[in-house]
């Protein structure tokens, strides 16, 4: 999966309130047994949750950052955010789909309808399309 992000020239960063030392131990003792070579991206430490707080994902009561995910474009603008309560894991396939859609939109100026996958029809916004989406897009 990481290779697919790499192929799209996407930088992945993970962040929790654990220290860098704990990240290293987690990599050595567990992650490297789940994934050959362990996780290849930088594992960042947000001790005290100050960064999580400004990203709206720090849970003061628990003292941890909950599952927030942000897509940032090459202009350094946040394009998407998704925040889940800790009990449910993310769907990396959906993340990949969103990155592809944002990259497509940025490259073409087109917009992508609900559930769009690469290769499917996109929409070209403009006066001519108003009221005529039904003609070009049939979900």
């Amino acid at each position: 999966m990481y290779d697919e992000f790499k192929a799209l020239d996407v930088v992945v960063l993970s962040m929790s309130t654990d220290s860098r030392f704990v990240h290293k131990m987690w990599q050595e003792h567990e992650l490297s047994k789940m994934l050959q070579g362990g996780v290849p991206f930088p594992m960042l430490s947000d001790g005290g949750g100050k960064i999580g707080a400004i990203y709206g994902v720090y849970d003061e009561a628990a003292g941890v950052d909950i599952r927030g995910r942000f897509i940032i474009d090459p202009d350094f603008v946040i394009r998407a955010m998704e925040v889940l309560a800790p009990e449910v894991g993310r769907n990396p396939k959906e993340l990949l789909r969103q990155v592809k859609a944002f990259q497509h939109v940025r490259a073409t100026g087109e917009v992508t309808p609900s559930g769009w996958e690469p290769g499917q029809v996109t929409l070209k916004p403009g006066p001519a399309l108003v009221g005529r989406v039904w003609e070009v897009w049939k979900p």
Partner: protein
Amino acid sequence: MPELKEGCVKPTRGPILPALPPLPAGAISPTQEVTKMLARVGKEAIDFEATAFIEGVGFQPVKLSDYKGKWIVLCFYPGDFTFV
């Protein structure tokens, strides 16, 4: 960036926020504590610096803006050695 000289405690800059406008004379300085969510879809990302563990590299300070010009996926999660 050079590898960190390792110590037990290494302060990092955390969030890097734009400087506040100067206060009028006599005004009470606001606290430096940042707890408000500032990240917004469609707005510039808030820069920060954090220490990182990077496989094959070791410990290194990482600034979000180091990756300006690339697509970035930033993922927060509750904790190492947990279950999901």
